[in-house]
């Protein structure tokens, strides 16, 4: 097991290296020049060239790459071309809101979706199942920003329960934190509730047709025990897999929610950086994202051994 974990962690290094090379090349081959943006409308060509020289943008691509890679290996993600602030500081400022939103959304989605999915499977082909599935289809179909504005109208402008926008860190207190994160979590979470509920329903329904469930029923096992101990546990591997995929998607998919609710997270940092070609920020954020993605996948793989003792690494 430990050897497997170490192997997996070591395996992340080439993955991240490939991501780094790919991202670097993609960025530098994309049209757009930060020096032109910086120089402004009045700049003369020699001014733009001077800025390019100062930023090191006129050096050969491989030199730029190895300089950047060397700095990254020594823990230095570089300096933002525009704000002149360290990329690590900018990411540090944005990490908490994004992680908070992703974690709260995941918890909310699991707490709501798994019981709904089990219920739908248990009451398959009844009105309960149909209601749950209609809800799931709606969750998939309605864009996050629409849900966001509706929630904002209902709970902020009409009822006055929550603020319209902004993020309060945990250090500001649990009340302000929850208040600021509640609506974004709800807006973003509905998609994942739909996704996990559908997967739970399908997985539990399949397990419910197994022989050992029929045997348990014949032996008079109570419904709750049957569902929770026998059906859900055995159906959990695909559910956990989809939760893992969902978490990874969440990290990258919070951009819209962050924009609608004005949460200063990594998603918005990335979009702003892409629009201005602030290369060091884009590279830094993508490395962080890929690291998180690899870590989440590792945790999911490890959870299989707990959920299904037959799985061994």
């Amino acid at each position, binding site marked *: 097991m430990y050897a497997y974990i170490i192997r997996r962690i070591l395996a992340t290094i080439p993955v991240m290296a490939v991501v780094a090379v790919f991202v670097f090349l993609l960025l530098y081959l994309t049209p757009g020049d930060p020096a032109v943006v910086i120089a402004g409308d009045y700049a003369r060509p020699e001014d733009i060239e001077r800025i390019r020289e100062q930023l090191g943008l006129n050096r050969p691509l491989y030199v730029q790459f190895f300089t950047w890679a060397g700095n990254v290996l020594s823990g230095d993600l570089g300096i933002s071309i525009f704000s002149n602030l360290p990329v690590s500081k900018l990411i540090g400022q944005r990490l908490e809101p994004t992680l908070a939103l992703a974690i709260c959304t995941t918890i909310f989605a699991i707490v709501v979706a798994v019981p709904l999915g089990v219920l739908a499977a248990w009451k398959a082909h009844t009105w309960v199942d149909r209601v749950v599935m209609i809800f799931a289809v709606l969750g998939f179909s309605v864009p996050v920003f629409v849900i966001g504005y509706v929630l904002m109208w209902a709970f902020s402008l009409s009822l006055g329960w929550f603020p319209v926008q902004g993020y309060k860190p945990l250090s500001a207190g649990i009340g302000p934190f929850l208040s600021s994160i509640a609506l974004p979590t709800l807006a973003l979470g509905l998609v994942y509730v739909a996704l996990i509920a559908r997967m739970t329903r399908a997985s539990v329904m399949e397990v419910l047709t197994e022989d050992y469930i029929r045997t348990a029923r014949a032996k008079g096992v109570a419904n709750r025990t049957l569902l929770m101990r026998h059906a859900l546990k055995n159906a959990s591997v695909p559910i956990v897999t989809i939760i893992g995929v969902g978490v990874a998607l969440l990290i990258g998919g919070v951009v819209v929610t962050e924009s609608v609710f*004005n949460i200063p997270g990594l998603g918005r940092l990335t979009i702003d950086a892409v629009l201005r070609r602030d290369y060091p920020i884009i590279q830094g954020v993508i490395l962080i994202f890929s690291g998180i993605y690899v870590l989440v996948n590792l945790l999911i793989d490890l959870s299989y051994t707990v959920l299904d003792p037959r799985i061994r690494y």
Partner: protein
Amino acid sequence: MRLLSTLAKGIGIAAVAAAMLGSASAEKVLRIVPHADLKNVDPIWTTAYITRNHGYMVYDTLFAKDKEGNVQPQMVREYSTSEDGLTWTFTLRDGLKWHDGTPVTSADCIASIQRWGKRDGSGQKLMDFTASMEAVNDKTFKLILKEPYGLVLDSLGKISSNVPFMMRKKDAETDAFTQVTDIVGSGPFKFVADEWVPGSKVVYVKNEDYVPRDEPASGAAGGKVVKVDRVEWVYIPDPATTMNALANGEVDLWETPSPDMLPLMRENPNIVIDVIDPLGTQGWLRMNHLYPPFDNPRVRQAVDMAVNQETYLQAIVGDPSLYKTCKAYLICGTQFASEDGGEPYLNGDIAGAKKILEEEGVMGHKVVLMQPTDIPLLNNASLVTAQVLRDIGFDVDMQAMDWSTLTSRRAEKKPVAEGGWNVFHTYSTGADVQSPIRNIGISGGGVERAWFGWPTDAKMEQLRDDFARSTDLAQQKEIAHAIQLEAFKNTPYVNYGQWYQPMAWRKGLKGVLVSPVPFFWNIELPQ
């Protein structure tokens, strides 16, 4: 449901209580939503308007323009000119201090003017005419010209980017192409670097040591009296969210409300909407003068004939109370403006334009139009132009891209087939367009000196030079009129209309100043 409601209320009350505790300690906090995110903090290093606005918070200027557009002394107490017009002497006001407590000196000002003179167009021109600058003592310095120059005060009192902000000598000695890292000014607010979160929030606190002028605030001039303890710029990228935040009282002022949101906001009795920039903004349809078909002035004139400003303004602004058609290159409503020479143009004359294209043999010519899809205003203008160009007989190739890509590509002087371009759109604020010197669009300096698109017009350059040398207002007006006529002859750009950006704020907020630039001194929060 009841449980949910109680829980939500509990969280909400706790949040409100925390906010109240916070506001009690910070007292008067003015929260505004700026038009853009503050990405960099050196207003000489960049021309970005958001950094210019930040500059006005932190730094001060020697001269400033009042709301009528007249240049008034700001940091300067008194100034004089020698009889030959070559030596200008400036004396600073008493009590001027940097935010670190040290006094503002002549040496600081000289270094600041020199750095600004390396980056700004007006500054470069002023430096071309300047023989030397020297400190007489700590508070007095001289600017000695090589020959009389009519725009000394106009340049030093320039209201828009790059504004000649005064910095400490050690900061001003930073290379003009490298950002200043220590933001220490002598202006009415202090920048709180530790609380700056790019992409989210910028914080300023009142500079208690600032000594405002005695005159009432007017435009960028007069007494900069700060009536709040703290100003927070809260950047909210989504217009609908910003509108809701303003309606909910979470922010006090929205600098540039989106036109789509105005009808809804007008229905809210707690929101005031007003235009504070009397000069407005002018749209530019820029053609590449280096390559066919727009290397031919008659073809450019044909496009100018085919454009109907009303169509563009409907597409980009919508509300007729916020725009007007105007044929003045130097923007309507300013002292040098004139619509003369524009009679055949901007009337939507498609038939007339087609005839010219046929005569010039460019009917069906391919035209590459760069379309910046991430800027709605320019995207809409591009769509209108595409239709106009098709209507008159061009084969339009619209190439969608983001603004960053466009700004790089517009600098390409290569032929279209090798990655060049034919047409793009932009706009410029009245504060920049109104002066023949600062209006970079009309420059005819050709491939070496003109702005992207590179028009060549020796007569225009001569007229601009004459304007700069003239020290007589009546003569300057005559030259400006000649510039207007020359512009319609050579069509450096097509002016697709003039519009006015409103500002929105909470009812009860007082003291918002009329100016092309938003200022946050003089503003009082609602009781």
